[in-house]
């Protein structure tokens, strides 16, 4: 690739140090992101997807620590940045939208102020009126009607969907190069969800930012993302282009996720599919593949050893012993 990637994450390990011990939330994750890409990170609760993205901007809870690894944003080492540079990074280059619109906005401060303060934070030249004008334009960009009036409203005067739009406005306020969206639709109604997804696509076209979209819903990813990362148990299970993930699925977990998407054509009365079992304990993660207890194709080797990544195409890799050419018997199972 001759284009330098915007974000490079290498062998990231993030853990939370609690009374019960070390919770290994992110265990050796590596990936890259170039300008203008929309990448989806899919996984269930506890898979480490949110923690990984919080690690990128070093916004972890006080008990959390990045134990190992490297994070390069635009070539600069994020983990060694000074507090000032980190603030600049967060202010200008990276915008984040969180999962809970109800609690992510300060209830005692007007919506407009919460947008404007970001604009004014590190930008000394802009005047208050200019900032206010920009905030109004941002609200229009996120399709909030009567933007001028809404600037002076308090968060509790807005619905959940509107609040999430405000969060988007805040996120894009400084023309960031990267947008991290942490389950932006999970807390909202399904009808609002599709509106927000449309908004995301529009924003990407208009601002040309790279987007990391975190979700547990494979369907959401199918609508919006070009590339997908599937995470489980703190590790990346599979990574590839959206077509590869859906039509040439190379991991049992991904297969399970696909099966879990409710099919509107199913007969009424049929049971919904769910992957049996529950996620592994991150206090004492298994030595081998984290998914083996729930995998119906698991083998003895899966218990003892964590599989390496097998590259199926330049853009497609998967962590599964089933892909090992040494494996006797049937050829690699894909797509089912």
């Amino acid at each position, binding site marked *: 690739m001759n284009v330098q990637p915007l974000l490079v994450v290498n062998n990231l390990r993030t853990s939370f140090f609690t009374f019960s011990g070390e919770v290994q939330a992110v265990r050796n994750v590596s990936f890259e992101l170039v300008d203008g890409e929309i990448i989806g990170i899919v996984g269930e609760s506890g898979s480490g997807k949110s923690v990984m993205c919080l690690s990128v*901007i070093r916004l972890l809870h006080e008990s959390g620590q990045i134990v190992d690894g490297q994070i390069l944003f635009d070539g600069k080492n994020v983990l060694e940045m000074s507090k000032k540079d980190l603030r600049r990074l967060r202010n200008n280059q990276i915008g984040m939208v969180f999962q809970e619109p109800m609690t992510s906005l300060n209830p005692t401060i007007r919506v407009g102020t919460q947008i404007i*303060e970001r604009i004014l934070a590190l930008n000394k030249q802009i005047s208050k009126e200019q900032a206010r004008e920009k905030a109004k334009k941002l609200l229009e960009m996120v399709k909030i009607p009567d933007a001028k009036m809404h600037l002076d409203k*308090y968060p509790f005067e807005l619905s959940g969907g509107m609040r999430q739009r405000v969060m988007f406005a805040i996120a894009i306020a400084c023309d960031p190069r990267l947008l991290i969206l942490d389950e932006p639709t999970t807390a909202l109604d399904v009808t609002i969800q599709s509106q927000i997804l449309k908004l995301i696509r529009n924003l990407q076209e208009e601002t040309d930012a790279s987007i990391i979209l975190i979700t547990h819903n494979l369907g959401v990813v199918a609508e919006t993302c070009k590339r997908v990362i599937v995470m489980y148990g703190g590790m990346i299970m599979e990574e590839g282009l959206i077509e590869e993930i859906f039509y040439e699925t190379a991991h049992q977990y991904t297969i399970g996720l696909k099966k879990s998407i409710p099919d509107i054509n199913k007969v009424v009365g049929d049971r919904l599919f769910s992957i049996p079992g529950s996620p592994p304990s991150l206090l004492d993660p298994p030595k081998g593949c984290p998914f083996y207890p729930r995998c119906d194709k698991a083998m003895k080797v899966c218990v003892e050893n964590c599989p390496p990544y097998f590259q199926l195409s330049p853009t497609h890799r998967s962590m599964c012993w089933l892909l090992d050419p040494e494996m006797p018997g049937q050829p690699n199972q894909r797509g089912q």
Partner: protein
Amino acid sequence: MLNYILKRFTMMLITLFIIITATFFLMQAIPGGPFSFDRVLPPSVKEALEAKYNLDKPVIEQYFDYLLGIIHFDFGPSYVYFGQTVNEMMADGWPASAKLAGAATILIILLGLPMGIMAALNRNKPADRITMVISTVGVVVPSFVMATFLLYFFSIKVELLPTFGVESYKGYILPAVCLAIGPVCGIARLARSSMLDTLSQDYMRTAESKGLSRSRIIIVHGLRNSLIPVTTSLGMIFAALLTGTFVIEKIFAVPGLGRYFVFSITNRDYTAVMGLTILSSAFMVVAVFIIDMIYLFIDPRIKLYEN
């Protein structure tokens, strides 16, 4: 919003009215009346006195007379210090109490609030632990017990401050400190837990993700929300201040309203007791009303709740 103000104001008036009525009738109910206690008066003198003070009129009439007097800010004559009115007693004791209460309030705000917030920002570090220990002591030990300890150390063992009286400003230091310790520690604990609570909220994370300066995050986002529960407790803090003055003024011989109150009680000066009770209650009730108004400015959600 007007609704809210009106509702609170009406509550204030009703409460005051109930206090005045309750106090009056309670005093009336005391057997014997003010002139049969301690003194042995010949019946004719007693009757003359009672006539003079209109005590021979029916109770209801006395009640309305008293109410009328209160509206004109006349609390009646003292039954013990003949010739002196309760108003005069109040005017006499007012300055000292005001200075004391004022000094205590300044201490509470300037010391208590920052203490609590510093503790929250340095959670579990030595500064926090020490603050917590000190504030636990201050909250648990009653003010007059604290006063005796402090008096013993600072006035007797170490002859730093005067034992009693207020000739110099020094005379105000110990009583103001003793009065303020309880509330200071209470506010500190409250501010700390409120701030810790706020710091763990999602919107604080959002503020950090915007790359705002640390001071802005703490002051604008953190402080504003932490102050809400603290303001709510201000009412109780005032109550503690009020009741504290009785004892502190007695211990340190500060010539204020509190001391007058204790004297009046001991000497069974009924009009004075009534007047001072109503005065203190009025302070409380007005203070609560003012706090409710402050609340309006700090928490915009009030407008939502009140609709």
